[in-house]
């Protein structure tokens, strides 16, 4: 009677897990598995590749496991069966050390390649002139400044398709993490510190971006829209903004920085000219030693003070 029980439970488990696997099959709804640009594509390839390798391991080990627990259950063995006195087996042990090493190498090489590739402009787009967008996270909104176009937006960002976008990430307060799953993986924004994340959208489309790093009460609402447009549409949008949007003032900017959740905003001009790049701080060493000279961005001191006043 009991003998029947276990397989029944296992079957239920298998059924349950297959439901999940099936629900995972329609990848078009799964952001990470629905890459819309070369960066996300690269990560997608890596993920799928490693997934199958891991599946192999999973299947092998599960197979062994199921074999062992079914074959050597007490109930299936003779009552007087006495297990042998095994201590180990040199060859077996060498095999199961060696094979994982091979798998690790197979995983490590593409990983390292991808790690380096992520720092540069995606292959095939090297000759395309990139556009720079400065991203400043504040509690709890995203501020996008276009230094070349001279405009600033809050909680949404428009980008031209097919053009590498250099996001210069920094924070005006807590650390956040800038994540647009369809376009590629995330990077942190940190105060007094600027980091670069290169992303690229292949097609026009609208994608959801989000802060991935918890930073306080408004965290769950800290998302933004990324609109990828054709170059013409993008240029037209920039022109429109310059014509219609109000000019960004220091007062406006400080108001935006106050902790809270806000909607979309659009300005002409950026806050970059009056936010001093921090210098001679310890963190700057990180910049100085970095071969690839990143642009500086950050908060000036009195703005920091402003912020903390609002806090208390």
């Amino acid at each position, binding site marked *: 009677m009991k003998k029947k029980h276990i397989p029944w439970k296992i079957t239920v488990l298998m059924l349950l897990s297959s439901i999940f696997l099936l629900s995972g099959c329609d990848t078009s709804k799964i952001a990470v598995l629905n890459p819309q640009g070369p960066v996300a594509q690269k990560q997608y390839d890596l993920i799928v590749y490693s997934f199958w390798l891991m599946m192999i391991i999973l299947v092998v080990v599960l197979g062994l496991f199921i074999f062992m627990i079914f074959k050597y259950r007490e109930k299936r063995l003779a009552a007087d069966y006495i297990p042998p006195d095994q201590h180990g087996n040199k060859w077996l042990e060498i095999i199961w050390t060696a094979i994982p090493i091979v798998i690790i190498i197979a995983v490590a090489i593409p990983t390292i390649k991808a790690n380096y590739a992520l720092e540069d402009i995606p292959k095939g787009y090297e000759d395309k002139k990139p556009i720079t967008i400065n991203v400043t996270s504040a509690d709890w909104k995203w501020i996008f400044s276009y230094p070349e176009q001279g405009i600033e937006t809050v909680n949404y960002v428009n980008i031209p398709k097919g053009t590498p976008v250099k996001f210069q990430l920094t924070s005006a307060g807590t650390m956040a993490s800038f994540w647009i799953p369809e376009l590629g993986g995330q990077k942190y924004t940190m105060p007094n510190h600027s980091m670069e994340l290169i992303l690229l959208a292949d097609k026009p489309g609208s994608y959801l971006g989000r802060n991935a790093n918890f930073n306080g009460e408004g965290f769950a609402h800290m998302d933004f829209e990324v609109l990828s447009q054709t170059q013409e549409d993008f240029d037209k949008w920039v022109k429109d903004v310059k014509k219609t949007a109000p000019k960004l003032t220091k007062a406006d900017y400080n108001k935006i920085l106050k902790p809270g959740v806000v909607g979309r905003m659009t300005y002409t001009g950026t806050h970059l000219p009056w936010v001093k790049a921090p210098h001679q701080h310890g963190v700057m*060493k*990180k910049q100085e*030693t*970095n071969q690839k000279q990143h642009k500086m961005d950050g908060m000036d001191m009195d703005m920091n003070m402003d912020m903390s006043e609002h806090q208390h």
Partner: protein
Amino acid sequence: MEQHHSKYPIGHIVGFFLSLVMTIAAMFVALHTNLPRPTIMSIIGILAFLQAGMQLFMFMHIKESDNSVVQIGNIIYSIIIALTIVLGSIWVMHN
């Protein structure tokens, strides 16, 4: 580790003398030479480790009990960990 009774603390005196020499040598190298900074740091770094080793063996008798293997292993392992923490942090934080 047997009981031993010597009359004069020769080991201690030698050790003390050595540590004074090394300290002053380090100060001299650091402040009164014009060597490049990395060279100076390596020299005085080595001197510091030598002096620490001297204390361990001559003052703290790390080798004397029947646990000496574990004691020495413990200290070597802590030095590995210490170097990992220090050099690792510097590497990670500045890169």
